[in-house]
């Protein structure tokens, strides 16, 4: 158990405990019974993200050459592909899992450890399975929507999936702490930078940023769980 993991477990424990108490005085909707708490978390996130994370991500885009950023993004995608393969297997989607593992082999061997993405060039498409989807596929309830500062929108099932991913992730097993933390940090900036375009669209489009992000996230997750073919949503009365 490393420090980052312990911190993550502690965070989730605190969130879960708060969720239990907040659940007693709920005013939110069916998908978001913890809305008051989530909105408070969202406010915290907006302040920290707006003042620290977003500017860092913007500087990363502005000052780091695109080719280098592409290499970084490919490197992390290669790890994601591996886990997509694992989750494809866990859901019995063998063909998809085969593609994912094929990508990892091709990109690790011929793409300098995943810095390049020759697998895409030869037409092996990226998968996007993850533990949250696997748990949902297995029939676990999605649970209440959660907004976790710095991590963004999630649900109980997706947050659990992310935890499993952190525990099993290869970066966490790196014994040299400065390197491990640098990789975590770079991974975060890489993800945040990728979302910069989306955040500027949300700024323009949303009447209520919290609701806009929540609804987009829940729609997106439903779409992913059903592999792009979600059944029509029941009309809420």
């Amino acid at each position, binding site marked *: 158990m490393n420090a980052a993991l312990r911190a993550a477990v502690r965070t989730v424990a605190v969130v879960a405990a708060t969720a239990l108490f907040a659940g007693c005085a709920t005013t939110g909707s069916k998908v978001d019974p913890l809305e008051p708490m989530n909105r408070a978390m969202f406010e915290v996130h907006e302040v920290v993200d707006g003042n620290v994370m977003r500017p860092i991500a913007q500087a990363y885009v502005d000052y780091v050459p695109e080719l280098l950023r*592409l290499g970084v*993004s*490919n490197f992390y995608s290669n790890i994601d592909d591996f886990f997509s393969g694992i989750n494809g297997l866990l859901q019995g989607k063998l063909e998809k899992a085969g593609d994912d593992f094929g990508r990892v082999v091709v990109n690790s061997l011929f793409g300098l450890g995943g810095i390049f*993405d020759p697998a895409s060039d030869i037409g092996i*498409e*990226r998968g*996007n399975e993850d533990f949250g989807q696997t748990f949902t596929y297995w029939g676990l309830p999605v649970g209440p929507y959660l907004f976790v500062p710095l991590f963004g929108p999630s649900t109980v099932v997706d947050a659990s999936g992310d935890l499993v991913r952190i525990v099993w992730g290869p970066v966490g097993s790196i014994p040299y702490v400065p390197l491990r933390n640098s990789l975590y940090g770079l991974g975060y900036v890489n993800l945040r930078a990728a979302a910069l*375009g989306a955040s*500027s*669209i949300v700024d*323009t*489009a*949303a*009447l*209520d940023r919290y*609701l*806009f992000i929540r*609804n*987009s996230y829940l*729609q*997106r997750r*439903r*779409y*992913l769980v059903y592999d*792009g073919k*979600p059944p029509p*949503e029941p*009309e809420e*009365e």
Partner: protein
Amino acid sequence: MTSLTAILCRFAALAGFAAAGLALSPALALAQEAPDALVKRVSQEVLQIVRTDPLVQAGNEARIHEVIEVKLLPNFDFVRMTSLAMGRNWRTATPEQQQRLTQEFRTLLVRTYSGALNQYRNETVDYKPLRASPGDTEVVVRTAVAKPGATPVPIDYSMEKKADGWKAYDVAVAGVSLVTNYRDEFNAQIQAGGIDGLLKTLAAKNKGVAAK
């Protein structure tokens, strides 16, 4: 010798057909352009402009708005879009409110699109085969937008056949439907301040973004 003449003749005949076909195609396009062909034509035209127009590339707002107004908007059914986003609240709105809602929603979407258009450069669009029967009046046209080094993003257009051609009434980006997304937002605004409250929020939002 005869064979060469024959080839030349056939070539001339084919060229003639091709020319006639070209001359006819605008008329045909107006009369019965299929929904997938429409999406393909419009998106190619817009991408071409984004790639080559120096004003658009420089982020000139007036020019970007013009492109959206002229190229994109005629292919959308904003009344249906707004009524779907309003859900059951649509029927409780007066005709005048409905009209203003449609107008404000349209403006909001134009502004959103303007911001998004700026981000396009090296994208290519992959058009999925249309799954529909000849008699259908509702179809979903599926596309995927790809950019080097990124996973392709599916963009699906829900379209309805109208008297003046196929019109889109919803767009889903990576599985996130625009109409569904706004339904909750509109509902929350209406619960807080009624339909006039929603109108006020929309108007303020459109002005605020304009001022930025």
